[in-house]
């Protein structure tokens, strides 16, 4: 009897491959290509130029030691990245550690994890504007501060400021840190932790020498997620910064809103390059492929 053959693997993978070829690989190539094209007020001019890059970095060497606009923007974005990364890492790690090592029943673990997931079913924009009643000029925080006579006039820097941007990032993205770290921690053999205790290690020593090294893959994956989101973000920075704070992603958006595609593309290539460098460095620390 002749057995029927299953569909070949490449055919099964074809729809997915086609989507990524059409909507990811080809677009990226186009971005790189267009970044080297000239433009005028109405359209892209098909002539090779380095103008988009040279204009982006204009004055960057001449103005030293002062930073030019693009470098200032990247420094500011990198600052946000670093602060948000540190905060989400500490908070995310603590939450994951609590869930993985201190909650004993699997059902309770899952229930608590679900509790943290529910807010993700609300639009990010809604979650951002939900800070207005709390942090606004007449919001709850200011009402409380005034009521307690801690301040004489409403605090202005609570909303539409770098503070509110960081707050929103932490609010929106900490869970991206929790999930992979929790996943790594659940794979840790609990007898290793017990062995450490039995060998006389203190709780801190166990945490530092056993739990953290074994959670490293989760930490790196979470970090990559948070860092890439913050690097490329223009939405949270826009909404929470009252459209007044610059970011690497927002530079691109501003160019595109003005229909200046080539300089927008050049900025996109720069952002892509910076992001890839960060990922490569993080990837040196842990091989992501082995962790999936």
């Amino acid at each position: 009897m002749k057995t029927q053959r299953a569909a070949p693997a490449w055919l099964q993978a074809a729809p997915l491959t086609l989507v990524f070829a059409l909507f990811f690989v080809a677009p990226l190539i186009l971005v790189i290509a267009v970044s080297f094209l000239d433009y005028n007020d109405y359209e892209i001019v098909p002539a090779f130029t380095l103008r988009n890059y040279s204009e982006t970095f204009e004055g960057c060497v001449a103005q030293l030691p002062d930073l030019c606009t693009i470098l200032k923007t990247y420094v500011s974005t990198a600052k946000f990245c670093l602060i948000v990364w540190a905060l989400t890492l500490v908070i995310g790690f603590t939450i994951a550690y609590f869930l993985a090592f201190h909650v004993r029943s699997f059902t309770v673990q899952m229930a608590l994890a679900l509790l943290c997931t529910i807010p993700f079913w609300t639009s990010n924009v809604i979650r951002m504007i939900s800070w207005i009643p709390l942090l606004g000029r007449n919001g709850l925080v200011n009402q409380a501060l005034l009521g307690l006579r801690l301040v004489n006039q409403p605090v202005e820097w609570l909303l539409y400021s770098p503070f509110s941007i960081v707050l929103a990032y932490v609010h929106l993205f900490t869970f991206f840190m929790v999930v992979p770290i929790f996943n790594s921690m659940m794979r840790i053999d609990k007898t290793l932790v017990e062995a450490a205790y039995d060998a006389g290690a203190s709780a801190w020593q166990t945490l530092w020498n056993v739990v953290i090294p074994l959670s490293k893959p989760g930490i790196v994956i979470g970090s990559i997620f948070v860092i890439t989101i913050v690097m490329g973000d223009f939405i949270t920075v826009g909404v929470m910064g009252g459209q007044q704070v610059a970011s690497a992603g927002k530079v691109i958006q501003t160019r595109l809103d003005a229909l200046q595609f080539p300089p927008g593309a050049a900025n996109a290539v720069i952002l892509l390059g910076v992001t890839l460098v960060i990922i490569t460095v993080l990837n040196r620390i842990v091989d992501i492929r082995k962790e999936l």
Partner: protein
Amino acid sequence: MRENRSFAFYALAIFFGAYVLFLYGPMIAIFVLSFQGPQGGLVFPLNGLSLHWFAKLWQGGGIVDIGGAFRRSLALGFVVMAATVIFSVLAGLAFRKRFFGQNLIFYIVVASLIVPSIVTSLGIALEFRLADDLVKTYAPDWLADGYTTAMGLYTSGLGAHLTWTLPFGLLIMFAIFNRFDRRLEEAARDLGATPWQTFRFVILPIILPSLIGVGLFGFTLSWDEIARSSQAIGEVNTLPLELKALTTTITTPEIYALGTTTTGVSFLVIAAALGVIAIQRTRQV
């Protein structure tokens, strides 16, 4: 672990509680404030209790075509959901075997998660502009006449969303198939099942609950997507894009009512999905 609840446990439990409060607090605030009376403002205290702002939202007018954006987002979300499930399952099956370019495709899929969304979005926009130019210049008259753009909700928009949902879908499929007992398939084959029968009557029923999860993921990711859609959605906007545009001009609690409504839809979809899973379970028992 040690027997008694330690100090560390209580400290961590309080920390966790504070985190949950931090997650929910602001959202609860806008849900409450969306029931503001007609005279009420954007902040506490509540000035009466009413459905005024929901009614206003329903009538439209105040805010640009929210109803239309709502329906578009819902429809696109369901298409993205279906495509994500089907393409992910097929690719998941493919990745259990070996095929040429396997590793490359895997890296590209992961890269799609890492590349900043605005870069992908810009690329798709450029691609469609190029395609439009080509059609206008070289296509036969019957096509070129009256042609404006190929960019739209179900072309560039759908593609942009899929580059975001498919990586998650594929990674979930990896997790599912890693735990799949291959002996079940072998048994089916030994009993004379065709590949299709094996898939339809053995594999599919086992992975179905997880597939509902993939679909749910696909829908919610699409329902909230902004960054990738921003340049690639074409003439009409999806709901989150409209919402984002509205944030610059927040003057009434109407936007809170809108927030409460969109969240309600997310919860309905999730409840429906969980319901389907529950029905599935009872059937299997």
